[in-house]
């Protein structure tokens, strides 16, 4: 009650705003807060936060969660762990949120998890943190089942890269990776996966951002005379490194991560060198709701979703809200976290990723059924550690841009990943 009184002014403002939009949702007489700690002061962080807000708008338009309007309190993490943790603590203690979305960087998400959400029993759902350290923490039981993330690319992508190398019959491969937590992770995972399918890894070299030349690194990678090369780089360093690689006589048999799925990279390197390049990515799923996501995003924001983490952010927010709906009004973070399985249940009724989907899910959940959320990143399914698997695609560069080569379904990905262990 106290919580509601304190926020009367905001609730009134919100209600007024919504009435202005003309939504029927303004009828609710209660507000449930969720928290979000995202790097809104960083250019690529803003769209991630905007996507989360958009989901909240859709859900409110569908009547809110458990009869209550959702208010997302958004705090900037400034990509500074201290600031992000403080913001999360304020959201949990002062606003009483039971669900926290965020953060983006693993270095911010991790201290939030260890010192705020896990001790307080609040569910934390990150769109974009990729570090494998979370899996380790979960295996030790320290996340208490409160941690989830919708970012699947690292493990899935490295496995698919190994699948490609095996199918193409490469005997040896060198790895170039970006020197950050994502790059170090995927570099390590890819090395293990290549070894598991019998492809020899001749060298694994880290590239720092913003260097004028990568000659030393490229020479290092060339030493083992690999038959192919695997690139886990971003377009800028990727372009520079590949130019040097080819000019020094390196192979054009390339396998690249989704970070290089960019026209910029294709144009700056030159298509004549990229004919034998195979890319990997987690798939745009083959469900109607996925194309719906792209359509409705384009309609809402006036441009197609491009940029890291947008579909992940959409799914993170939607799944969190679905779980809140399933858990019912005034549930604790633990109760909500326990419901995540029920809304991503492969045996459940499929629902789409939009306002209608949410409304449909509400009815099914009210009737005691379970729901299979068809998300913007695919049929999201969490394992015991809060990690997701996803379907995958391979793609290549062509005259027209980027073309899909092969679709690998979730089951195929899962069974292949299982065979690697």
């Amino acid at each position, binding site marked *: 009650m106290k919580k509601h009184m304190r926020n009367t002014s905001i609730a009134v403002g919100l209600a007024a705003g919504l009435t202005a939009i003309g939504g029927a949702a303004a009828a609710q007489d209660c507000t449930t807060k969720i928290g979000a700690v995202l790097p809104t002061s960083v250019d690529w962080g803003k769209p991630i936060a905007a996507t989360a807000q958009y989901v909240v708008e859709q859900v409110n338009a569908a009547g809110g969660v458990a009869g209550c309007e959702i208010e997302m309190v958004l705090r900037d993490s400034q990509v500074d762990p201290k*600031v992000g943790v403080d913001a999360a603590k304020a959201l949990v203690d002062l606003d009483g949120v039971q669900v926290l979305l965020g953060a983006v960087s693993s270095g911010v998400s991790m201290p939030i998890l260890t010192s705020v959400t896990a001790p307080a029993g609040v569910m934390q759902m990150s769109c974009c943190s990729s570090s494998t350290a979370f899996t380790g923490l979960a295996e030790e039981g320290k996340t208490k089942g409160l941690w989830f993330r919708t970012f699947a690319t690292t493990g899935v992508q490295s496995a698919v890269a190994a699948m490609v190398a095996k199918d193409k019959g490469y005997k040896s491969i060198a790895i170039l990776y970006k020197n950050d937590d994502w790059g170090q992770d995927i570099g390590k995972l890819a090395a293990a996966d290549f070894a598991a399918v019998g492809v020899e890894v001749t060298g694994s070299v880290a590239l720092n951002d913003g260097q004028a030349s990568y000659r030393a690194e490229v020479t290092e990678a060339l030493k083992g005379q690999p038959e192919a090369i695997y690139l886990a780089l971003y377009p800028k360093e990727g372009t520079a490194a590949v130019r040097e690689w080819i000019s020094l006589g390196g192979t054009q048999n390339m396998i690249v991560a989704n970070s290089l799925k960019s026209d910029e990279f294709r144009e700056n390197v030159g298509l004549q060198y990229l004919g034998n390049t195979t890319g990997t990515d987690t798939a745009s799923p083959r469900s109607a709701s996925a194309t719906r996501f792209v359509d409705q995003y384009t309609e809402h924001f006036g441009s197609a979703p491009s940029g890291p983490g947008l579909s992940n952010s959409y799914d993170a927010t939607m799944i969190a809200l679905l779980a809140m709906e399933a858990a019912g009004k005034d549930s604790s973070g633990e109760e909500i976290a326990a419901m995540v399985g029920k809304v991503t249940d492969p045996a459940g009724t499929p629902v789409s990723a939009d306002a209608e989907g949410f409304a449909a899910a509400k009815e099914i959940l009210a009737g005691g059924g379970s729901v299979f959320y068809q998300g913007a990143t695919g049929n999201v399914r969490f394992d015991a550690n809060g990690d997701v698997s996803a379907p995958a695609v391979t793609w290549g560069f062509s005259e027209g841009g980027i073309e899909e080569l092969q679709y690998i379904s979730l089951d195929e990905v899962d069974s292949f990943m299982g065979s690697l262990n």
Partner: protein
Amino acid sequence: MIGVISYLVFFSTVAAILAIAVLGLNLQWGNTGLFNGGVVAFFGAGAYATLIFGGTPQEGQLGGFALPYPLALLGGMFVAGVMAWIVGILTLRLRHDYLAIATFGVAVAFENLMRNAEALAGGAQGLRGFERPLFDALGGGLAYNSLFLICVLVLLLAVYVFLERLIRSPFGRLLRAIREDETAARSLGKNPARIRLTSFITGSVIMGMSGGLYGTFYAFISPQDVLPILTFQIWAMLIVGGAGNNRGAVAGAFLIWGAWTASGWALSRFAPQEVQLYTGSVQFILIGFVIVGMLLWRPQGLFEEKLVVSQQGRTATKELQGDRR
């Protein structure tokens, strides 16, 4: 209500940890005039070393010695001190801006080393695996945080008392003598190089303690925690609080950290929904205003340095200056 208390305990813990680092910087800059632009390196050395000494074994990583907490913290301070000793010997002959640039370079190198040295520091993923003592016994919530806050406050007080006594001692006067006029100090038979090094190491050990507390509070440290922004934050705290005054250093830490966090909180609460996306950027502007405003209206900081100069001493200084002209 319990939520407010819980948050304030959390906030005070972080502010008090930062205050310890500001005190360390105050000894170096406020009292000795050493422009340390690499605060974060010594803070980070303390944090990483404490976690390595006190943590549980992690796969493929150095450390996991699981030493008792006080020993681990002392180890962290020791490592910060050793690093300061090496850096000090190499750089302390440099003056002012040169020293600032050299130490800034050390801090950037430190961050890069931590980002790349996976076996030593966990690489970009950071270092975890520290078991917080009594964390599970106390349920990890408010009770644990309160206990931790008490420990931090005790250490803050200890550092404060230590520094207050130090700067009032003959050694403290010597530090200020070197700050004001190194040649004069040398003419009195003092060895400024050694005194500067002593002050630099002492200040860095204090920063190392602050870092050790920080790392163990979160039970996690990553290269993201040791970016140059932290050096800037600690400097802002000292400048706003008042360089040369320990009370000012502590007040500055609480004030700047308070402004930093409260601006974010206030914006999230009072800014209209449509502009919520931009509050992150607005917050930076607000923080900048506080710092610039302080510099404009109160450049000496909240608490001025109290200069204790005897009458004869003042005459002597004047004569010296006269001679130089």
